[in-house]
């Protein structure tokens, strides 16, 4: 596995380069950059900026998936965090707003982790609960309306800039750096991979597997809350119905494109981020090309399939499957005869 990793990453990077090249073909100004009001503008910056929420989600999701779990609730947690931030923004100070929104995300994550690690509920079901309930909670917070705010402090998280880069990009990059530092700088990375690879054996080797699982869901909730804050700041308001809608699927897709197996074990934070950017580069490209956005979904499906096939160590496995199916059909015929 280790020896294959560089080649593994190659597929994703190649795919991103190819998609950017296609984007350049449909929109010749794709790589143009210009500075305006101390902030960079251009299609590439747009990809990074629009992609920031899914990048954040995929940072949490990749760790969850590495433990052989999944978190369907991240979109709903985005909506909750966004609703809290937007409702508090004009009446409270920024640190308090952030603490409330991020703290709620953390609690959501701990709830998921509790269901999975302590009660032993299957991750897909455990997080489905919050996926459904979370949107309801967000609507209760906003009282069913779209809550807008005017606070420039919170607005900075959507429209601000540091050294010319949009704030969401800087935040996502910072979060990537922080996650890599925490996970790979401590023993967390190894213990998460061990837990996902073989939880029974890890438990018997003295690994606190429950703690690992709790930790990754908590981190996932935190990342989702941050993504929710950015999304709310971007539109200066919170829409409980649509904030983060279906983004959990994009995040899962990003992780899978990034080469992390849904069966847990090995994971790559960087490649998950590349996966998220691949998705956003496609979205932006189709918007720029002038094709109807409906096409987006189809193109996405084709590209995802291509990337997955590219990184599959055994395309031959498909041939084997075909042979087995053929064999089964023959046997069926034989049985009928």
């Amino acid at each position, binding site marked *: *596995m*280790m*020896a294959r990793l560089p080649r593994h990453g190659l597929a994703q990077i190649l795919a991103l380069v190819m998609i950017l090249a296609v984007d350049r073909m449909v929109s010749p100004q794709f790589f143009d950059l210009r500075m305006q009001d101390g902030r960079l503008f251009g299609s590439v910056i747009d990809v990074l900026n629009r992609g920031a929420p899914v990048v954040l989600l995929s940072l949490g999701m990749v760790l969850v998936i590495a433990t052989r779990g999944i978190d369907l609730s991240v979109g709903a947690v985005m909506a909750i965090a966004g609703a809290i931030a937007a409702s508090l923004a004009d009446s409270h100070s920024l640190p308090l707003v952030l603490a409330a929104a991020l703290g709620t995300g953390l609690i959501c994550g701990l709830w998921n982790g509790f269901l999975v690690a302590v009660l032993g509920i299957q991750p897909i079901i455990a997080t489905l609960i919050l996926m459904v309930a979370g949107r309801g909670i967000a609507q209760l917070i906003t009282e069913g309306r779209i809550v807008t705010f005017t606070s420039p402090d919170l607005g900075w998280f959507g429209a601000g800039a540091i050294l010319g880069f949009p704030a969401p990009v800087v935040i996502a990059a910072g979060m990537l750096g922080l996650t890599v530092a925490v996970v790979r*700088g*401590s*023993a*967390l990375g*190894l*213990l998460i*991979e*061990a837990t996902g*690879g*073989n939880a*029974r*054996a*890890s*438990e*018997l*080797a*003295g*690994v*606190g597997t429950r703690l690992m699982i709790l930790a990754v869901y908590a981190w996932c909730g935190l990342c989702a809350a941050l993504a929710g804050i950015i999304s709310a700041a971007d539109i200066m308001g919170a829409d409980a119905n649509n904030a983060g809608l279906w983004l959990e699927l994009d995040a899962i897709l990003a992780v899978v494109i990034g080469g992390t197996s849904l069966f847990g*074990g*090995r994971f790559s934070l960087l490649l998950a981020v590349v996966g998220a950017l691949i998705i956003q580069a496609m979205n932006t490209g189709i918007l720029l090309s002038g094709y109807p956005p409906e096409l987006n979904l189809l193109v996405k499906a084709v590209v995802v399939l291509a990337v997955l096939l590219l990184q599959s160590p055994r395309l031959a496995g498909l041939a084997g499957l075909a042979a087995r199916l053929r064999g089964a059909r023959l*046997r069926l015929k034989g049985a009928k005869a």
Partner: protein
Amino acid sequence: MQKGPDPAPLLDVRGLAKSFGALRALQDVDFTLRAGEIHALLGENGAGKSTLIKVVTGVFARDAGIVRLDGAEIAPRSAKAALDCGIATVYQEVNLLPNLSVAQNLFLGRQPTRLGVVRQAEMRRRATALLQEFGLHIDVAAPLGNYSVAVQHVTAIARAVDLSARVLILDEPTASLDRHEVEILFRVMRQLALRGIGIVFVSHFLDQVYEISDRITVLRNGRLIGERETASLPRIELIRMMLGRELAETTGERVAAPAHGAGEACVSFEGYGKAGTIAPFDLTLHHGEVVGLAGLLGSGRTETARLVFGAERADSGEVKVEGRAARLHSPRDAVAYGFGYCPEERKTDGIIADLTVRENIVLALQARRGLHRPLSRGEQDEIAKRFIELLDIRPPDPERPIGLLSGGNQQKVLLARWLATSPRLLVLDEPTRGIDVGAHAEIIRLIREFCDKGLALLVISSELDEIVTYSDRVVVLRDRVHVEQLQGDAIDVTNILAAIAADGAARGAAS
């Protein structure tokens, strides 16, 4: 049941061989099943019973040998093909669909139809009639999952027999049945034998084997040890066939130095046990001492090991580590006290197949140090390199995923995982299981070496001469009770066998 001049065998297996890589799972095995007999296939874990069944039923391809059914050579290439030939297998885990009705399970894939529509009433009528033949009067329209495991077993057997099976293989069918359910199953088995069906019965309950079987075939380490009439095979002889080697074969000189017993007490258990798992036991392990656990499969050896390591929580008794009261509620606790455990099921409970040799080695040490004190890559490399050299792990590549190594080398990596934590007590459950001969001898040598360095070792093995070779003390288990401790010169294969068989013989005479 069948006497007189050897009737033509129903199933005749000759010279069967099967290897998995370097591991020879079956070597030159013969097996003969007559029509209308119940034939017990016995052996400890890893003896080759499952492999034999899987080769005969086409799940594994064989390397050499002939299988004849009614004199005609057969070579099924899948379980389905074997079933078509007339060989049906019912596994311990019934592989039917608990959410479907009993009738649907019986006729799945061959439901009676009219114009393409399943005739439910007809199917239920036929299902009821079929099960009545087996003495089961149940509502066949109810989901199979509503019924006991025994009924599920009989249903599986009924389905298999109704598919015109002539050879029925029952793999550990009684493992999860109570006494009454076993009676039901045995009645069905006898009935089928009378109809001329040959039944292969795999079990590790010797009482049941003596109760139901006509003949016994024993395998050990992938070889045929012998085939006997049940009635004329004393129980101690059977156990000797399963566990011991022929006396001439015994090469193991006792290498345990008697002086070892003098070490300080390292860990001691008093009245330690768990209801339904293992009766309370007293056990003291000294530094520099190897204690062997001997007993048949299911006698409570692994249960003892799991209790010692905290993988099961005891509900009675106390444990002291270096004289101080300790609490063993989880493997984490045990690791914190400096215990290590190499489980029997290496693949599911030991290795983490995707991770590299290096990562597998440092895992326990890292877990013990905690999250905030990560081993640097340099330290990891150094530890991995040291143990790869020390234990001669091959190939000597720390970055290779452990799943790609041979069984013996995986076992060495697991040993390295615990040695890296500098443990005070190491529990080894069948450390030489499924390992080729070369690595086997080496692991035994390593066990003695660790012990000389002051480590306390608790070793489980089905190989009695192996236990005799390295143990300073042997604890014999029977029916989940620690029944005897042998020490010094008393440790030999004969005494261990006598301790294992003692009660069984008494019970055999009583019943």
